[in-house]
């Protein structure tokens, strides 16, 4: 009968879709109450969606400080206080930049076990599965003691609805301090593009893209697919794409349902960042490119020829519904 909590993340358009997979994972332990904790965003607006996935208590955690949203340390302290107050035995969140940061702060404050970027979690025996050595091995770890904390890779657990009725309340800790860190400003990336780590579908351009303006072709295809656009390290190093778009060892680790690699050779470092994708499609003019040895489907051909046809076929398919 353990209470389980999920740290809910919101974006500009309300709560993120990727939360629902995390809630689904949290629901696997029957018996306790399923909490959703919100540090930002509008709890009443999120109520219906959270209820659809089985949340029973929605708690907005905050202090009276006007700059609470800009104070990562106060947010973590307030969340840690909520975990104690509601006797939470397991706290899950998204392995996103914000989720990882907040959970690591809470784990340090509570001296609690934490595993980041998990592919799966079993709350009943306190075990998780995650990648080690950049995806070359898979580790099963046990978290000892409670509360146990775990961030899950976006899209790693398929969301399944399980309607429930939720109450909404506010939790204001007695003291959370203001901390020594203040967020001054957010510099938006020019693209306003979908975040790679959270995308269901990703289309990536490698060195063969040849120039930064050629990403336009991938963006057109991405628009039809509802996909995010990524780049390989070789393309980033060549100056064709910013580092924020990089998938791989020193870039983003992604786990989409569909990963389409265009003109990517398939270096170990690239696979480290995308090998947990459900389906990998490779488009490359070199029939001996290593990527064909580790993908589901391959098209041998020039990406400048194949991608426009792909965009066209997808557009027609979408129109037919």
């Amino acid at each position: 009968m353990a209470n389980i909590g999920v740290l809910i993340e919101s974006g500009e358009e309300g709560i993120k879709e990727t939360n629902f997979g995390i809630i689904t994972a949290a629901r696997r332990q029957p018996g306790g109450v399923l909490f959703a904790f919100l540090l930002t965003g509008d709890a009443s607006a999120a109520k219906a969606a959270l209820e659809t996935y089985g949340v029973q208590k929605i708690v907005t955690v905050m202090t009276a400080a006007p700059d609470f949203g800009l104070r990562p340390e106060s947010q973590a302290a307030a969340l840690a206080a909520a975990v104690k107050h509601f006797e939470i035995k397991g706290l899950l969140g998204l392995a996103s930049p914000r989720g990882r940061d907040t959970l690591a702060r809470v784990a340090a404050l509570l001296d609690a076990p934490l595993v980041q970027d998990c592919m799966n979690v079993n709350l009943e025996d306190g075990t998780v599965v995650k990648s080690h050595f950049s995806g070359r091995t898979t580790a099963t770890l046990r978290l000892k003691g409670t509360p146990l904390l775990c961030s899950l890779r976006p899209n790693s657990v398929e969301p399944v609805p399980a309607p429930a009725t939720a109450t909404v309340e506010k939790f204001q800790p007695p003291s959370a301090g203001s901390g020594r860190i203040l967020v001054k400003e957010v510099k938006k990336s020019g693209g306003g593009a979908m975040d790679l780590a959270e995308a269901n579908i990703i289309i990536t351009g490698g060195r063969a893209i040849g120039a930064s303006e050629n990403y336009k072709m991938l963006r057109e295809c991405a628009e039809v697919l509802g996909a995010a656009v990524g780049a390989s390290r070789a393309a980033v190093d060549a100056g064709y794409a910013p580092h924020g778009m990089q998938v791989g060892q020193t870039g983003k680790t992604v786990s989409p349902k569909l990963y389409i690699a265009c003109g990517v050779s398939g270096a170990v470092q690239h696979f480290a960042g995308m090998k947990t994708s459900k389906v990998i499609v490779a488009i490359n003019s070199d029939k001996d490119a290593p990527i064909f040895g580790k993908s589901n489907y391959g098209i041998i051909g020039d990406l400048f020829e194949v991608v426009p046809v792909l965009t066209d076929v997808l557009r027609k398919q979408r129109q037919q519904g």
Partner: protein
Amino acid sequence: MRIYVCVKHVPDTAAKITVVDGNGFAETCKFIVNPYDEYAVEEAVRLAQKTGSGEVVIVTVGKEAAMASMRAALAQGAQRGILVKTDSQFLDSRTTSLALKKAIERDGAPDLVLTGKQSVDCEGMQTLYRLAQALGLPVVSDVVKLTLDGGSAVVEREIEGGSREVVEVGLPCVIGATRGLNEPHYPKLPEILQAKKKEIKVIPIGELDLNAEEVCTEILALEATPERGQALILEGSTREKVEQLVSLLVEKENVL
């Protein structure tokens, strides 16, 4: 100004990992300085040079073999090193952070602590947070730009979608470096030779009086991640290949 840089000795990101005994790996593969820690070392060395009187101290928790990575960091320009010697490559983040804390506090008071945002072997992404908590310092990770300004630092950290958050943090603090912070330079031969003469103090972990048995995570099993096989190569004209692909993605894979 004294900067401590926490560095981990890890298997090369391109090395083949062979699982041994179900929860360990063959440590005969090539090892390197954890790539994210390399950015931390470079940044520390540059900052120390800028202030003129700075000292950069490398702190590592690891086996004797980790000396190789410490020498590499010393060749990059750090002045000396402290190795907390252990018998195991895998320590949990609580133990590692306590060992780092004790080693740093025994040595002196940090003006700044730098490290990588994560190790590329265990990918724990939390040791720096626990270290900061133990030292009573604030921590900011995923840092791509660091500017010291009197009693505080202004840093830029990478967040979603390639955006950056500009954060002000009081000094001293712990900073987690990521790619983009700088371009680490390749040490020249004289630097490599000099590094061999630099001091590395070795402290057996047992001397630090940690409650090391109180681990918070343990590895139950480690296995090679199964590789996807050879791709199904689609045949025909470009349009035929693409049409086959789309129908496979829709009907067989259910991902479109």
